[in-house]
């Protein structure tokens, strides 16, 4: 025969094969026909082999015949046995045979998998040879047809296997007798099949002989011996299966021991390259946790032996992937990994699980076949499977071949990683698997795909070579970024709408994989480091979440998110670590997820890919929504009746979750260890691609003593609270007092501005915490609240001590994210949850802008150090740095709720416990103005800012814009405060207005402005906090939320009333009180800066504060008494002390503004500004400085002179009479009361008329 004829034979074989497989697929109802047709189809393979010819082709053909004879023999005998006993050839009757005849069905399944080319004893060698031969001969198309046929075959094989072996039988079948010889024969064939799979050499020798070749020379080496790292778990799997048949306890022990031994082996192994080492550690570590978890989870499970068996096979094959140094083994392990994990997915053998398993197996095996094809092409081109040879040869490969290889291999990886559009299996398989498997499935199996990309595409082929090979218009990096972003958004959006917990987590995995893929696609060393760090962190976090979800499902049997309401109280540990994992996954500090997210965003910013960073942040915002929702359901919803008897998860499961949680905390506080593993990979990559090595910022959060102390205190308080709520409260107060001392003890950790702020943070914190202990005395879950409150304060303290952008942002997030949310939704009411969530989301958006801005600034300036930023930014063109700086300042302004559009979305909600509302208003929101001032200076002050769009009347444009925003906000928020009727909304809106004053003054940037702003910063802190604490004292007394529920409290609570009136009037700007002093400076500064319109607005704004304060005073304390207030009592000492101390502070500052102005002058010279001229007892500085003290003294003297006049009439006595009501005697107090909602009727109407619809309805309680 001529060569041409031979080739047509091969083509005939290929077509025959494909048609046969499709025919078999169409005959599914009749397994006998399937068997016959598929057996005939196999002839196609033989024809291909013979037709292609050559040593490989012919040897492959003969080998294939041998393999198929043995394996199909096994299928034939066991299948015949099943049919005979069932007495039917139809699939519907045969379904469920696994239950009736376990041994025969197992042998049948084994045979089927072997025929397909898969089993625990490796795959069939002959198909390799034949396809290899085809590609070697340049017949890529024939090989492609063969590959497609294999994928088609996988579908029907798997359906048959699932239905016959795994499906649960629906109807009873009376089994018929069958010859006793069949089973021994089948077992014998099974053993033979196993042996020739493990040791193909003798068969190969024989086949070569048949083909007429004396030696195996000229045949490729497909595989190399398995490493010890693989063999130990692999053989261990068989051993554990055996042990399990004797004793379950012993098996569990052995399994844990083996898993830990595997981790140790990996850790001690020195032969792995950095990428492999990293992934090997990850794989073995997560599997070890999985085994520990499974001891509890699988305790009552029927098929536990099988479960452990496949678990360790999977571990072995995954470790195998990392040990592989050539494509042959890599592929075998890859297939084994799919195969073993498939068994874990269908472990529960429900219809849904089987369906999920089918999709999973077919997609992943199909992907693997494609990868296989690519590998053979690579071999044909380069002549080796060895990675080292490929690495050398790939650079000079033909572009088309390179494209085929990269595409095929990439598709294999992409399917495994679950990238959209190859993701269909993931949301099916992950939730359907037992929860103990779902975790690793999401955590590490998807990561195997990413491992492939990093190891093979980046490592072996090399970034530059891949770029060259795919250079024809398609760039791998672009593909990765595009697929990553699509996967990210798809996953997040699907997760957002998901109602079932595990499915939500699965979609979230998609999103996270997308995130990592997109960052990998950036292609820089830094990006690779970042992506790999997230690979590790996500593996841990997602496994933890699945494990916690598994514990919920195990204990309650419920899978919907809404079913978990209130479970946090029944399973505090599990729900607690779930919350921890969620917070980490949201990318919030101080957990590992934050570190990797930060690094990823930074990497994107550094690569100039702002769009990628934006998509990541957008995804993160969506993630916040659905993750918070679950935590809210767990902890802040009333518990459902169905879970009243639920117990905490078993101890081994808690241990497993505890390990993961600890890893998350460790990875957040000290990422150095992980980075040490990862950085060599990035560096290697950079070296091979000729890029600069990654320069990582220091990602260890620098906790000042104060913040560390408060954080530790928070945890101790939480734990102590389980025993004594009262002592937990005392400890919380003590912690904050110690924090004041800690700030004082470390003055060098702070600049002067931050030092003063830190003192106020801790000091006011201690006062508010003291108030809280009384406020929450008769509440619930106090320790949880103290904890959240303390964490917030720890964040603030850490933020003030930050010397670089990383620490600044990390502590900013600690202060303004989860702890803040937890504190706000503490009351567990629907309103608290809704409003708290709204605020949290708004904060997340603000923080995202800040996040992007901060990383952009760092990337552009090349430094994170605040001290070095100014110089670095000064050298850059304005257009480059402007967007980053604008983003940063937008974040700050949003923190202070300054944007004059829908302020109701920006404000902290009123439903929070009042002392924390006060703290947020008085202290926490000040981080906005503080940040503006601090970063303004750090970014290079006026010289840098003047470059950004120039100046208006000497003021940089950006600051000019902030001035205007602040000025409008003063009036807008002030007006809004006037029309509120809820006790706290009045105060909250007024806060926004007052923050406007601070921000306006600071943004002026003049000496008088900054000094006035800082003075108001302090004054407002003291005054507004007092007002809030008063509100708290009232609310806890009366349980009211609206002003109209109060009335006439002044006589019952005279001290509280006095403090309120003093602070309120001072805040409204009544001279000579302290609130007026600072405003006076702000007015003067505005006018002097030429902002006379803003100055006028600021002056008018204080009238609105006055109206709001008086309305509050009237409705709550004065006016016609409300019968509801009859039982009111003066506030307890624990409330009076903080309110009194704050008021005394205000009084002192009113008399001696120098007490604050002297430190402010020091702050200003520290910041490099012209300091304000101030003395401790002197007048206010300014053009015509006036002395509040002089005015106060005059007032006092005049008052003392006039007092006797007032007492003159006392000779005639004081008469208490009823108020005059024109003789009407039958009106109740309620009828004569002028309530808060009708007090300012005319202005109310006018204001409502001016506002857009939907704003200012004042319904928010």
């Amino acid at each position, binding site marked *: 025969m001529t060569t041409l004829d031979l080739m047509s034979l091969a083509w005939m074989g290929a077509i025959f094969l494909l048609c046969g497989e499709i025919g078999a697929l169409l005959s599914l109802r009749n397994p006998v026909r399937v068997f016959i047709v598929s057996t005939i189809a196999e002839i196609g393979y033989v024809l291909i082999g013979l037709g292609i010819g050559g040593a490989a082709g012919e040897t492959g053909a003969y080998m294939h015949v041998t393999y198929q004879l043995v394996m199909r023999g096994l299928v034939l005998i066991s299948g015949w046995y099943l049919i005979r006993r069932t007495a039917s050839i139809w699939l519907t009757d045969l379904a469920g045979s696994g239950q009736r005849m376990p041994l025969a069905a197992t042998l049948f399944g084994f045979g089927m998998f072997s025929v397909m080319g898969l089993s625990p004893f490796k795959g069939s060698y002959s198909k390799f040879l034949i396809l290899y031969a085809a590609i070697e001969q340049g017949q890529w198309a024939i090989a492609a047809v063969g590959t497609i046929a294999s994928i088609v075959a996988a579908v029907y094989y798997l359906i048959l296997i699932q239905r016959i072996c795994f499906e649960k039988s629906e109807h009873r079948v009376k089994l018929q007798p069958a010859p006793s010889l069949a089973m021994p024969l089948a077992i014998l064939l099974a053993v033979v099949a196993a042996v020739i799979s493990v040791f193909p050499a003798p068969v190969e020798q024989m086949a070569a002989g048949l083909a007429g070749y004396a030696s195996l020379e000229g045949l490729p080496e497909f595989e190399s011996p398995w490493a010890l790292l693989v063999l130990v778990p692999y053989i261990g799997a068989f051993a554990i299966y055996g042990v399990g048949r004797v004793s379950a306890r012993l098996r569990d022990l052995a399994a844990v021991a083996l898993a830990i031994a595997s981790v140790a082996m990996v850790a001690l192994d020195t032969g792995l390259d950095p990428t492999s080492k990293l992934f090997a550690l990850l794989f073995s570590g997560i599997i070890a946790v999985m085994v520990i978890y499974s001891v509890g989870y699988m305790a009552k499970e029927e098929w536990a032996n099988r479960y452990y068996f496949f678990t360790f096979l999977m571990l072995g094959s995954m470790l195998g992937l990392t040990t592989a140094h050539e494509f042959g083994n890599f592929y075998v392990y890859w297939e084994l990994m799919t195969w073993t994990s498939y068994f874990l997915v269908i472990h529960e053998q429900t219809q849904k699980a089987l369906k999920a398993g089918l999709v999973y197996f077919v997609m992943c095996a199909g992907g693997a076949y494609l990868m296989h094809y690519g590998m053979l092409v690579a071999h044909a081109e380069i002549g080796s499977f060895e990675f080292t040879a490929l690495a050398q040869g790939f650079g000079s490969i033909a572009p088309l071949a390179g494209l085929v290889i990269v595409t095929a291999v990439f598709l294999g990886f992409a399917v495994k990683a679950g990238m959209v559009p190859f993701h269909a299996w993931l949301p099916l398989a992950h939730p359907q698997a037992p929860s103990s498997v779902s975790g690793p499935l999401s955590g590490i199996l998807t990561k195997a795909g990413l491992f492939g990309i990093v190891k093979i595409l980046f490592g072996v082929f090399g970034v530059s070579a891949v770029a060259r090979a795919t250079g024809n218009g398609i760039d791998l990096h672009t593909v990765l970024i595009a697929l990553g972003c699509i996967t990210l958004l798809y996953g997040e959006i699907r997760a957002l709408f998901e109602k079932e917990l595990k499915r939500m987590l699965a979609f979230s995995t998609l999103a996270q994989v997308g995130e990592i893929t997109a960052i990998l696609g950036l292609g820089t060393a830094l990006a690779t480091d970042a992506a790999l760090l997230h690979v590790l962190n996500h593996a841990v976090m997602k496994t933890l979440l699945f494990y916690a979800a598994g514990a919920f499902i195990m204990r309650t049997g419920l899978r919907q998110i809404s079913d978990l309401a209130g479970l946090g109280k029944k399973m505090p540990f599990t729900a607690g670590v779930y919350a921890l994992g969620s917070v980490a996954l949201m990318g919030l500090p101080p957990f590992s997820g934050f570190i990797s997210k930060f690094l990823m965003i930074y990497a994107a910013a550094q690569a100039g890919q702002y769009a990628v960073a934006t998509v990541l942040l957008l995804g993160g915002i969506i993630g916040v929504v659905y993750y918070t929702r679950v935590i809210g359901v767990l902890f802040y919803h009333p518990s459902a009746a169905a879970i009243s008897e639920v117990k905490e998860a078993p101890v081994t499961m808690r241990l497993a979750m505890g390990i993961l949680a600890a890893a998350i905390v460790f990875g957040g506080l000290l990422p150095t260890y992980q980075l040490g593993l990862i950085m060599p990979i990035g560096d290697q990559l950079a070296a091979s691609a000729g890029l600069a090595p990654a320069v990582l910022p220091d990602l260890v959060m620098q906790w000042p003593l104060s913040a560390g102390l408060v954080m530790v205190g928070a945890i101790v308080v939480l734990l102590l609270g389980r025993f004594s709520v009262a002592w937990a409260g005392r400890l919380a107060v003590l912690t904050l007092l110690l924090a004041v001392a800690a700030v004082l003890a470390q003055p060098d950790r702070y600049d002067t501005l931050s030092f003063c702020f830190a003192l106020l943070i801790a000091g006011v914190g201690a006062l508010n915490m003291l108030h809280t202990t009384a406020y929450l005395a008769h509440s619930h879950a106090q320790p949880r609240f103290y904890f959240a409150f303390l964490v917030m304060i720890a964040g603030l303290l850490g933020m003030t001590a930050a010397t670089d952008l990383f620490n600044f942002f990390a502590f900013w997030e600690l202060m303004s994210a989860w702890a803040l949310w937890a504190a706000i939704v503490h009351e567990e009411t629907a309103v608290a949850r809704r409003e708290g969530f709204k605020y949290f989301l708004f904060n997340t958006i603000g923080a995202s802008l800040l996040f992007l801005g901060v990383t952009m600034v760092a990337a552009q300036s090349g430094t994170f150090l605040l001290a070095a930023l100014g110089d670095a930014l000064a050298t850059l063109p304005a257009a480059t740095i402007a967007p980053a700086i604008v983003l940063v300042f937008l974040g700050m302004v949003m923190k202070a709720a300054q944007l004059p559009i829908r302020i109701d979305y920006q404000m902290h909600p009123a439903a929070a416990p009042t002392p924390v509302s006060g703290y947020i208003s008085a202290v926490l929101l000040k981080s906005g103005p503080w940040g503006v001032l601090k970063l303004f200076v750090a970014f290079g002050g006026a010289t840098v800012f003047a470059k950004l769009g120039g100046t208006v009347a000497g003021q940089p444009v950006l600051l000019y814009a902030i001035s205007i925003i602040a000025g409008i906000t003063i009036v807008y928020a002030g007006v809004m405060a006037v029309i509120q009727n809820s006790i706290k909304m009045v105060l909250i809106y007024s806060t926004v207005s007052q923050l406007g004053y601070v921000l306006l003054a600071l943004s002026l940037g003049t000496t008088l402005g900054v000094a006035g702003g800082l003075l108001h910063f302090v004054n407002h802190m003291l005054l507004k906090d007092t007002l809030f604490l008063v509100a708290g004292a009232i609310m806890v007394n009366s349980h009211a939320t609206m002003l109209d529920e109060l009335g006439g409290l002044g006589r019952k609570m005279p001290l509280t009333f006095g403090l309120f009136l003093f602070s309120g009037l001072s805040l409204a700007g009544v001279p000579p009180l302290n609130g007026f002093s600072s405003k006076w400076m702000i007015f003067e500064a505005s006018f002097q800066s030429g902002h006379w319109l803003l100055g006028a607005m600021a*002056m008018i704004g204080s009238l609105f504060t*006055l*109206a709001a304060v008086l309305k509050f005073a009237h409705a709550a304390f004065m006016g016609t008494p409300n019968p509801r207030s009859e039982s009111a009592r003066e506030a307890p000492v624990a409330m009076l002390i903080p309110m009194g101390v704050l008021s005394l502070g205000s009084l002192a500052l009113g008399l001696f503004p120098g007490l604050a102005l002297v430190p402010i002058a020091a702050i200003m010279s520290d910041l490099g500004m012209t300091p304000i001229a101030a003395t401790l007892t002197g007048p206010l500085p300014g053009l015509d400085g006036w002395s509040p003290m002089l005015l106060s003294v*005059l007032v006092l003297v005049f008052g003392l002179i006039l007092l006797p*006049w*007032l007492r003159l*009439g006392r000779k005639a006595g004081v008469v208490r009479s009823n108020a*005059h*009501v024109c003789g009407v005697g039958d009106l109740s107090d309620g009828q004569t009361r002028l309530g808060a909602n009708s007090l300012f009727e005319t202005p109310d109407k006018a204001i409502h008329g001016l506002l857009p619809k939907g704003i200012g309805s004042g319904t928010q309680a």
Partner: protein
Amino acid sequence: MSTQLTTLLAVFLFPGGLFALVLGLSLKGLDRRVAARLQGRIGPPLAQPFFDLVKLGFKRTMVPATASQPVFLGAPLVGVVSMLVAVALVPVSGLYSPDPMLGNLIVLLYLLMVPAIVLMIAGSASTSPYGALGFSREMTLMLAYEAPIVLAVLAVALRTGMGQGGVITFSLTDIIAYQRSHGMFLLDPVMWPALAAFALFFPANLGIIPFDIPEAETEVLEGPLLEYSGPALGLFKVMSALKAVVVLSLGIALFMPLPFDGIWGLVGWLVQLAVLMEIGVTVVRLSMGRMRIDQAFGFFLKWPLLLAIASVVTVTIVA
């Protein structure tokens, strides 16, 4: 004399303190007398406000049973004190320039709010529904007239500042000095809108017809004052008398300081006060009816505000 001593004398004796007290009560007496004549009555003697005060001083003090006594009785005291201090902040052309340590125009504007604040607190603290209504109306009125007056004063400050080289000034002494060298703003057409705004402001601020809405006797029985009697009511009378002096003096300083010094300055100022009192207060309150609160609110946010804005705009343009 040292400056401290001068300041103390100014604050406690002349032109503030005792002198202002006598002056304020005398102007009240004049107002009542002239009003009576205009209505065809004989009217009380000029010293009648003094007699009233003494009488009230020896009356019993009545405090509503449900009121918070310290606040109820403290309010008028604070009100009088605030006005006594405020008087000392207003310079008299050619006669008296206050020590800058006492405060500038901004401080004065905020001090001027105090009487209204104490009236509101008094009304609210009395627990009387009429007091509460008075409070409500007073606040409404304030919300309406505050923006125009701030802008009108700003116009004056801007005009002075720009005339002096661009730095806006809130020193009344500077403002007077500027007018003495450049002519009073009363004769400066650019300042007429501001003057008009101010003219509309002061009856509202002083609580006289047509803007005596918070204390309307025939509607809310004097509102916040309803429950007051004896010395406390006396204090409110004094407060109102002093406030008239402060507001009228402020108007004089802002728009029409006389170019005389010494004794002629004093005489001129007193004549100005008396004339303004008769024209601006007595005649106005006799010749008009009272507005409703919503009318007044709308009115102030219309004409005076427009005038004030116009004044600021014209001042800026002219400069």
